[in-house]
């Protein structure tokens, strides 16, 4: 039973990380109908930024909590500015071009950022400092759920609640929903659609940066390639849940995380991806719009 609960928690924390990234995919898709393939790289840049800041602050002898907060803040700001810039440089000029052009631009941006970090940093794995200490109060259950899993779960939950409040109740959130439902009408009520798109990229990138830092400190090492794999997985989760749907992205991520965790635990870690993608195929066969996605009816 303990083993089951252990797998459950590790699956949930894995799902939480996927969710942080998947939300960026799904929100951007909801607003401009583009799969932002460079999103995984934003997550990787978040991990690198927090790595650099955390290392510097550790050398300077800052206390643990301050390191986490400052490194996280730096990662969020830096990744958000990347997200904002990518949209302005690579997607905005293609707003009225065929969808495929923007998609190719996204893939190009992804490769560019990977290679840029490869050149600017290194191709080796870098050891990431353990930012989350082993809490004493977690001691009795430490064999089931680790402190950093717990931090991931709590942080993600808080972030999700904030995001839900933002989207459901604030003026900006309503404008985001309005823009994704009917862009022309959003313009006609005076919404500056370009600004809403920028805000969406900033929010999505910030979430990915938080995910990048959490996962890097959990796993303990990073390199320039981590964004690609995490990006593909999170994208899968977003599709699984129904691309464009925010609750769908979270649900898809949790389902994917649990599937991987149980597959690893009960079968073999070699089969982790086999199970994950088989699940995707099955769901897409029986519900092509994803778990919570709406069937895409084209207006004529």
């Amino acid at each position, binding site marked *: 039973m303990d083993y089951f609960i252990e797998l459950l928690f590790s699956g949930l924390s894995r799902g939480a990380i996927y969710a942080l990234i998947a939300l960026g995919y799904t929100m951007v898709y909801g607003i401009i109908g583009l799969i932002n393939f460079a999103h995984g790289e934003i997550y990787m840049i978040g991990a690198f930024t927090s790595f650099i800041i955390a290392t510097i602050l550790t050398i300077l002898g800052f206390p643990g909590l301050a390191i986490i907060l400052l490194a996280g803040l730096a990662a969020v700001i830096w990744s958000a500015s990347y997200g904002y810039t990518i949209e302005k440089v690579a997607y905005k000029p293609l707003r009225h071009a065929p969808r495929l052009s923007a998609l190719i631009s996204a893939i190009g941006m992804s490769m560019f950022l990977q290679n840029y970090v490869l050149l600017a940093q290194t191709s080796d794995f870098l050891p990431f400092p353990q930012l989350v200490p082993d809490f004493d109060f977690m001691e009795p259950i430490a064999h089931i759920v680790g402190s950093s899993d717990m931090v991931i779960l709590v942080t993600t939950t808080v972030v999700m609640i904030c995001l839900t409040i933002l989207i459901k109740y604030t*003026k900006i959130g*309503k*404008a985001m*929903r*309005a823009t994704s*439902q*009917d862009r*022309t*009408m*959003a*313009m*006609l*009520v*005076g*919404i*500056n*659609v370009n600004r809403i798109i920028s805000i969406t990229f900033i929010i999505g990138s910030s979430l990915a940066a938080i995910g990048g830092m959490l996962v890097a400190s959990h796993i303990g090492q990073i390199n320039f390639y981590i964004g690609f794999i995490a990006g593909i997985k999170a994208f899968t989760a977003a599709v699984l849940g129904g691309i464009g749907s925010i609750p769908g992205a979270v649900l898809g991520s949790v389902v994917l995380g649990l599937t991987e965790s149980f597959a690893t635990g009960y079968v073999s870690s070699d089969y982790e991806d086999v199970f994950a993608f088989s699940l995707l195929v099955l769901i897409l066969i029986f519900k092509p719009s994803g778990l919570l996605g709406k069937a895409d009816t084209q207006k004529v």
Partner: protein
Amino acid sequence: MLKLENVESGYGNILAVKGISLEVNQGEIITLIGANGAGKSTTLLTISGIVECRSGRILLNEEEIHPLGTDDIVKRGICQVPEGRHIFPQLTVQENLDMGAFMRNDTRQIKEDLDYVYSLFPILEERRNQDGGTLSGGEQQMLAVSRALMAKPQLLLLDEPSMGLAPLIIKQIFEIIKKINQENNVTIFLVEQNANQALQIADRGYVIENGKITITGSADSLLSNQDVRKAYLGL
């Protein structure tokens, strides 16, 4: 108030509006009538800056507005109820109205205007927490007009408010349009295929054919014009 001078616009290689000039004065109800594909909706979308104005000038109170973005044009007081209503389907009625007041910050005034539109259309208040997409066609049209009013426009552009509605609802909508014009001093530019209804409430009218204005005059003179009667009134 609003003046179009030789405006041309269109989509891709197709020119839909081929040099239109017209004028809307403060407090008037002006109607633009014409057949399908004559360029009526394109004219309205060009005024709102959704479709690019390729040549000519669009002036609001003597000031050119077509280089501005749509959001700035809305801020200057031109609001549009587009063809097909364009309700935000997954926002509630209340949220749709909130979006109408998007660029306003005068909370207290907004509340008063909200009460006002709910008094115009009590059914909307009953359905305030329902998603916009679940309303009937007539209710959606009421919501679309109300949403535009929430922006406190100087000039309201209405694109075929009668489309797809039952005659009784059409009558109600046109009565409200007249009421908005008289009570709130909102200037109205109404595009319609339902020429008879439109000319009944309008002060003046323009007839558009193939992207060009062919006939213009007071609503009464258009109602008695032989060509208009034949082509648009079916008499």
